[in-house]
């Protein structure tokens, strides 16, 4: 419903829907302070009984030429900061989505390859779920980033290292028979 009045002092007088038990933050090109305000109100009203869920934490969606637009992660961070609580993130690297796939299809992790361009989402989820992980270099990640994690002494960073990489997924074609 539209909020009354032009300013925040008016918006906080609008009635809240008594049935709301979760705030879900996804990609929202119409995100606004007014919506952030309403989200905060629901979270304060419900306390721990109102879930705060985010679809993913991606910072940016890359476009051609190095440009990009803000990602869902920015909006999740705004809500988390205002509410001073952490969101449950459904998307990669959380294994929840893999569990959804495995629940619908007969997937054997030992015989499944996860293909992605992002270390802290695609590769990390694949490694956490026991999949073979394959990095493609047509996206956000450059190879020296991988080397950095490999050479670090930090076990957490080793989870970001893929089993294999290709320059592009087209490189897989030659090994697939007719």
């Amino acid at each position, binding site marked *: 419903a539209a909020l009354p009045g032009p300013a925040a002092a008016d918006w906080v007088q609008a009635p809240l829907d008594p049935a709301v038990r979760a705030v879900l933050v996804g990609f929202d090109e119409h995100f606004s302070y007014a919506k952030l305000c309403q989200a*905060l109100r629901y979270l304060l009203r419900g306390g721990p009984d109102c879930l705060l869920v985010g679809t993913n934490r991606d910072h940016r969606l890359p476009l051609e030429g190095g440009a990009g637009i803000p990602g869902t992660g920015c909006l999740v961070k*705004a809500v988390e*900061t*205002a509410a001073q609580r952490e969101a449950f993130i459904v998307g990669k690297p959380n294994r929840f989505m893999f569990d959804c796939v495995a629940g619908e299809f007969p997937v054997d992790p030992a015989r499944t390859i996860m293909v992605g361009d992002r270390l802290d989402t695609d590769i990390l989820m694949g490694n956490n779920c026991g999949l073979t992980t394959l990095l493609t270099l047509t996206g956000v990640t450059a190879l020296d980033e991988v080397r950095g994690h490999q050479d670090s002494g930090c076990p957490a960073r080793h989870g970001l290292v893929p089993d294999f990489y290709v320059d592009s997924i087209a490189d897989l074609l030659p090994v697939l028979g007719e």
Partner: protein
Amino acid sequence: GVSSSSSSMASCRRLSGAGLREVLGPAQGLLFDCDGVLWAGERAVPGAPELLERLRRSGKAALFVSNNSRRSVAELERRFSRLGFRGVRAEHVFSSALCSALFLRQRLLGGGGNGSGAGRVFVLGGEGLRGEVRDAGLRLADEGEPAAGEPVRAVLVGYDDQFTFAKLAQACGYLRDPQCLLVATDPDPWHPLSDGQRTPGTGSLTAAVETASGRKALVVGKPNTYMFDCIVERFGVDPSRTLMVGDRLETDILFGKNCGLATILTLTGVSRLEEAQAYMASDNAAAKDLVPNYYVDSIADLIPGLDE
């Protein structure tokens, strides 16, 4: 004396009776936060106007330092008057809006030079903040403006109740230039409203811009010390003879600690006494800096500490 030792932890003592006179007596001046200290919404804290009057009569300075970036200092001067406070002039008031403008003037206009060539500022905020930036001699980039023209040399994030995804994207576009500054008026995650609800603060908007741009903002407001530098430059305040009075441990009290001021927490605003006591009991070294030297239920409780 009133100086706060930088090595020992403050002990959050209630200020009253003889202790009150011992602390206030030697003080040359007091810095006050505004929201939750002098007023709550449109109501002055009972006794607050009288306290300021008694400070004036005692020859002690009263200056004001607020993270609220909504209003220009001219608007704040009118607000003080409207709420019953006498004799407070704009020059006594240091808001994060004013100080952000001063900061940007320093960084973009530097030592001398006129406005041209300094670049423009993209402001995420209301008319009060935009006015302070203009008054500092800087030019604003407008929303939805095409990229051509004088480059944007700073993005300033303030309290912006008209914040949108489009403005966030526009800010990120400017921040692709590593020479473009990212500045935030204050770090406050939320502000209380009179009926107990909360409204999101600049901190939540800054978090969105930082996440999208991969940059960390320079934060002008409390607990950072830039606003104190502005005060010292204009009035030459001696920290060892000055008290900081505020209602928010994470901003006002930490600001006092960072600037070498003894601190008084007043309980008419955001922070509860239990929170100060929890910081005092915490094992975390950083928590100690959030403990006030003293506390009062309201700043009206300071009145008996002043001479008749």
